[in-house]
Structures are given as structure tokens and as C-alpha cells.
């Protein structure tokens, strides 16, 4: 990022992996990323460039923006996978559920029905919701384990078929996350008063 000869700041790379000097992969050494983030934050801080040329000052601003966006994207395993998938030319966050298994849709639908009942004060629904909440948390944990395995497999094999699987598991994960949030909102004591 800095010229090896004159030490001036060069235009920063917009590729997060390159920016942090990390190997492109789905599994990532989190403490190492954090270490580099702090180190780069110090080196690139715009305050250090106030007496430098205008061009270098601009690079430092650019670099700081990439630093923060990149850190946010890479430190979160889900955002990281989305970033890498996008780089590899996959459609990510596409708002159609083609990869969602029908059983999951059915389950999501039923749970939403239960949430609606609870909203209308049905106490029977509360037990159903609590049970569903536990089930969805367990589902989320299982998905995270599955992702972890897939991440390692991709890093080992660089097989695009694995990325395809990652993409579909991520879609599933989003649904489950939304459900967990939705149920938490309903179960919160400050929500609807018990009838």
C-alpha cells in the first residue's frame, strides 16, 4: 500500500482480501484480521496525512473507507461468504426463494401464523412459539456448523460446486435469522401484554 521506495501512500486496493493482505478464502483467521485492522487503522489514519500532498491525503481517506467496509465484511462469516460469492460472480441476496426447500417455507409460514395468533392474544400460541423458538435456534446453530464445514471444504478444494452449496445454505440461514428476530420480538416481555 505504501511505495517501497519513497514510502508514500499508493491508491488502495478495493479488494478486501488484497487490502488486508489475507489469503482469499471463506474460513479466515479472525485474530489475524483484527490485528491487521488495528495496524492499518494506525498507519492510514487521515490525521497522519495532513501535511502530505493532496493526492496522498485523498488516498488515505479512500483507504480508511475501504478499511472499515472491508473489516465489517470480512470479520462476519456470513458477510464474508457473500462478498466472496459476489466476487466469484454469484447472485447474492437475490430476493427470490428458489433455493429455499419447500418444507422450510411451510415451516416459516406456520410459524408466522403462530406469531399472528400470539399478536391477537392467544396464549396457546405462546407455547408453540417458545417451542418453535428453540427449534429455530437449533436450526441456526446447525446451519452455522454446516457453513463452517463448507467453508473449509471450499478453501481446500476451490470447487465452485461448494460455493453453490454455500449460497443455498446462506439463503436458508437468512430465513432462519429473520424468524428468530421475529419470534424474539413477539416473546419479549415488553411486547404485547399477556391477556
Amino acid at each position, binding site marked *: 500500500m505504501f511505495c517501497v521506495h519513497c514510502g508514500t501512500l499508493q491508491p488502495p486496493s478495493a479488494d478486501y482480501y488484497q487490502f488486508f493482505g489475507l489469503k482469499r478464502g471463506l474460513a479466515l483467521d479472525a485474530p489475524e484480521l483484527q490485528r491487521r485492522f488495528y495496524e492499518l487503522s494506525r498507519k492510514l489514519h487521515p490525521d497522519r496525512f495532513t501535511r502530505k500532498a493532496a493526492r496522498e491525503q485523498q488516498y488515505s481517506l479512500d483507504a480508511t473507507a475501504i478499511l472499515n467496509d472491508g473489516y465489517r465484511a470480512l470479520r462476519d462469516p456470513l458477510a464474508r461468504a457473500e462478498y466472496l460469492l459476489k466476487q466469484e460472480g454469484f447472485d447474492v441476496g437475490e430476493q427470490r426463494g428458489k433455493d429455499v426447500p419447500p418444507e422450510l417455507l411451510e415451516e416459516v409460514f406456520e410459524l408466522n401464523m403462530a406469531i399472528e395468533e400470539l399478536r391477537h392474544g392467544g396464549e396457546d400460541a405462546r407455547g408453540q412459539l417458545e417451542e418453535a423458538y428453540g427449534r429455530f435456534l437449533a436450526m441456526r446453530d446447525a446451519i452455522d456448523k454446516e457453513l463452517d464445514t463448507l467453508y473449509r471444504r471450499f478453501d481446500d478444494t476451490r470447487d465452485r460446486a461448494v460455493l453453490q452449496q454455500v449460497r443455498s445454505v446462506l439463503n436458508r440461514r437468512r430465513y432462519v435469522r*429473520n424468524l428468530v428476530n421475529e419470534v424474539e420480538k413477539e416473546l419479549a416481555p415488553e411486547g404485547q401484554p399477556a391477556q
Partner: protein
Amino acid sequence: MAYSNKVLDHYNNPRNVGALDRNDQQVGTGMVGAPECGDVMKLQVKVNPETGIIEDAKFKTFGCGSAIASSSLATEMLKGKTVDEALEIKNTVIVNELALPPVKIHCSVLAEDAIKAAIADYKKKNSVGNPAAAQVAQ
């Protein structure tokens, strides 16, 4: 973001909310979803087997106002159409009718997908337009 009056109208007074008996031979059920926004949409049609005309349509959608309005409008449009006419319904009609902004176009796409899924389910049940499948089933 402000919703158009038409979206608000369908959102506040959704048409045809409810369910049809999914085990009924005449009923086709489509269940679709958008994981990104957590939306799920169930749309059902009841077809007259003699005429192929959709006599009833119901929906239940969990999602944003635009998703609810899109599916509500879809059920209104479906009634009185034949199953083949129903397959011609494009999401752009819904977009125009509801004046959906670009960020909400996917809601209309979801409604179109739901129509297609419901009709496909009906056809599968009745093996319409797919004689090969009917033969295999026998």
C-alpha cells in the same frame, strides 16, 4: 418510503385473504418466499374442472405492505381467468397497477411466482397439459 394509495388500499383492505382446502382436487397451492426479506406468500386457486376457469383465489402473505398488496391484487386478477390466461399474468402489470418503486419490484415477482406455483400445483394434481406425466403416474 411512502407507499402509493393503491398499495395502502390493498394493505388495509386486503382482498381474498384466507385459505382453501389444499387437499381439494380442484385447488392448486403455491407457496413461495424471499429469504432476503423473510417474506412468505401462499396463494391458492380453485379451478372449475369443466371450464378451466379460476372460480376462487385466496392468499395469505407474511411480509411488507408491497408483498401483501401484490398478492392481494393477484388474487383479484386471477378470478374469472382460465388457468392458461393466469399464466400470462406478468409482474409488470402488478408493478404498474400498484405503482411499485424499483426496490419493491421483487414483491411483484414473488406474486407472479406464486401464481405460477399455484397453477403448476393444480396441473400436477390433475395432470393437465402434461399427458406424459399422467401416463407415468398410471
